[in-house]
């Protein structure tokens, strides 16, 4: 590293060597793989770091490190790098001056990079597409905040905002908007609800009391997540399958240890009790692999597909097999194959008699 001209001491003060020991508390363990950031990625970060501090007048080392997902050691290394920038014009000068004495970062000179770079097309699109989707979410309260924010971001992004209109996520409008209103009401007032809920896999209309936890919107579908008092567990209820909903005059009582689903790991997770099912489907039945979460799909001759999936309840697979007719066959387990044949035989008998 070249010695900086016209400047005494490092920005960390006390003559600490540049890039030396971190100051102000023990460094947090740097996340693995972060060292693999490319020069371009680091440059992007540096160009955001300076305005981050400038716009706040001053910023704490710990807080800034957290905002950028860095350890304090990594942050100090970034600050030292910024401080070392030197241009010759033709006389050498240092465009950036900063200090982080006492754990507080102050940028006293940032010249041309005091403001952040404009949003790139991908960046503007990621936010705008998500915001426009939110505007479609039934029952969202902050509709005015949403439209104000969309307008501000569109203005700030300028031309970069244009392609975002070519990506859209549509949110299914559940048939009963009234149900959503009532769920929002129950959530706000923390009330128990009574649900009449359709379970297609078993073709049942079930009655149950649920203590609502939150409304989820995953891939355009809305779900109520709540503590089901009948199942004594956290359950998801698709809003378009709610046949009736009543807010009860009873306070919701979600058990302390009720775990909301980590939506980022997928809504449906395998369990050890699952039955392993193997199906084979014709080209006309390939949609099965798209509609249901499958463990594997293996190409067979003539466009047939061998699908493996696991499920806690095989009732829906029996119904699926009837729907598929000659476009599908259950391969395993044996007893499921037998039951599907029995189902079809019984149904044909009903036609023979009626």
């Amino acid at each position, binding site marked *: 590293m070249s010695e900086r001209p016209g400047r005494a001491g490092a920005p960390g003060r006390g003559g600490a060597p540049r890039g030396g020991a971190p100051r102000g508390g023990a460094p947090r363990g740097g996340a693995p793989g972060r060292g693999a950031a490319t020069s371009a990625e680091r440059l992007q970060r540096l160009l955001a770091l300076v305005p981050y501090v400038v716009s706040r007048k001053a910023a704490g080392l710990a807080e800034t490190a957290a905002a950028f997902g860095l350890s304090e050691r990594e942050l100090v290394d970034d600050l030292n790098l910024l401080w070392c920038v030197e241009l010759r014009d033709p006389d050498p000068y240092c465009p950036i001056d900063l200090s982080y004495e006492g754990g507080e970062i102050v940028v006293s000179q940032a010249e041309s990079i005091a403001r952040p770079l404009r949003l790139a097309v991908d960046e503007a699109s*990621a936010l705008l597409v998500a915001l426009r989707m939110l505007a479609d979410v039934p029952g969202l309260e902050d509709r005015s905040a949403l439209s104000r924010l969309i307008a501000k971001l569109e203005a700030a992004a300028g031309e970069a905002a244009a392609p975002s209109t070519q990506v859209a996520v549509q949110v299914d409008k559940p048939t009963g908007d009234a149900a959503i209103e009532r769920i929002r009401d129950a959530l706000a007032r923390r009330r128990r609800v009574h649900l009449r809920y359709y379970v297609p896999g078993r073709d049942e209309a079930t009655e149950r009391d649920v203590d609502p936890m939150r409304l989820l919107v995953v891939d*355009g579908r809305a779900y109520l997540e709540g503590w089901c008092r009948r199942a004594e567990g956290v359950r998801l209820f698709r809003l378009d399958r709610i046949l009736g909903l009543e807010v009860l005059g009873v306070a919701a009582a979600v058990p302390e240890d009720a775990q909301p689903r980590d939506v980022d790991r997928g809504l449906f997770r395998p369990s050890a009790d699952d039955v392993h099912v193997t199906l084979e489907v014709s080209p006309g039945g390939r949609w099965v692999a798209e509609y249901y979460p499958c463990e594997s799909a293996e190409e067979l001759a003539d466009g047939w597909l061998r699908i493996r999936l696991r499920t806690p309840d095989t009732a829906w697979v029996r119904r699926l097999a009837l729907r598929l007719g000659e476009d599908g066959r259950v391969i395993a387990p044996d007893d499921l194959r037998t039951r599907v044949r029995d189902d079809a035989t019984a149904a044909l008998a009903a036609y023979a008699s009626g």
Partner: protein
Amino acid sequence: MSRRKTERLLSLVVCLLSTRRYLTAEQIRQAVAGYPDQSEAFKRMFERDKEELRELGIPLETGSLSQDGDDIGYRVQRQAYELPELRLEPDEAAVLGLAARVWQHAELAGAAAGALLKLRAAGIDTDERDSGASARQGIEPRVATTEPAFGPLWEAVRDRRPVTFAYRAAGRSGPQARELEPWGVVNRHGRWYVAGRDRGRDAVRVFRLSRIEGAVRFSGPPGSMTVPAGTDVREVVRTWDSAPPQENTAVLRVRPGAGYGLRRYATSPPVPAPDGWETISVPFSETGWFADHVASFGADVVVAEPPDLRDAVIRRLKGVLT
């Protein structure tokens, strides 16, 4: 990661932003530390650096320094570089945090994080913790992009490039080659679609991303296609995907306490029959699809009318036994 390279790129950005007039490559080499003296090596490195800056979205301008246009110079205009002033109310910032989480692990997650970083750099405090906006809203929206085709198709839409891919249409035993001018990508009922002009068929087509097999390839440079003015891709996909009108009515015999998936759509209350079963009327559009649906109820639902629907269900059920 090379620290020296980062330092050089940073110096280059500051240098280009600090100048009002265009700087020649030679002037830049003088001003920015870290470039080699040897001119061929410098040229190559400078070319790569310019490319990196452009990829980051830094608006690098090229202009001629003299009347005859012999000397090329470079600069970055502050106005083109800087994010305009932006102030958010607390409720707007809360919604922003919610929006940034939508993509979580999906294709645009990195872009959302990058945007948030710049907005924070502009002095905006977003609330990203789960306790914030989402708890207040009681809402957690997520979008996944598990289809590998999403990334390249978004790039194609963004950069207005035609693409080719292999597509397996519903019911087909093998994929077909397609060339498409993609107008947009739309998620509907949780599935991603791309809409555009199919060059082979010279017609508007919609494709489901999960049915694209193998790689999506660009078949033209950026800007080599146009989206017709006034195109609303959401509408294109909606029209393509919308159910045909339900012009037929089925009369179904339903076992008591069963057939809820059909009872939901019955046009009138069930009529009890002497044997304890009930009769309902349900509208439908297409016999084939509706027969599949009715068959899935097995012995709980029997079609009384119309005869072609009844025959189709029986065929389905017999198919199970073959």
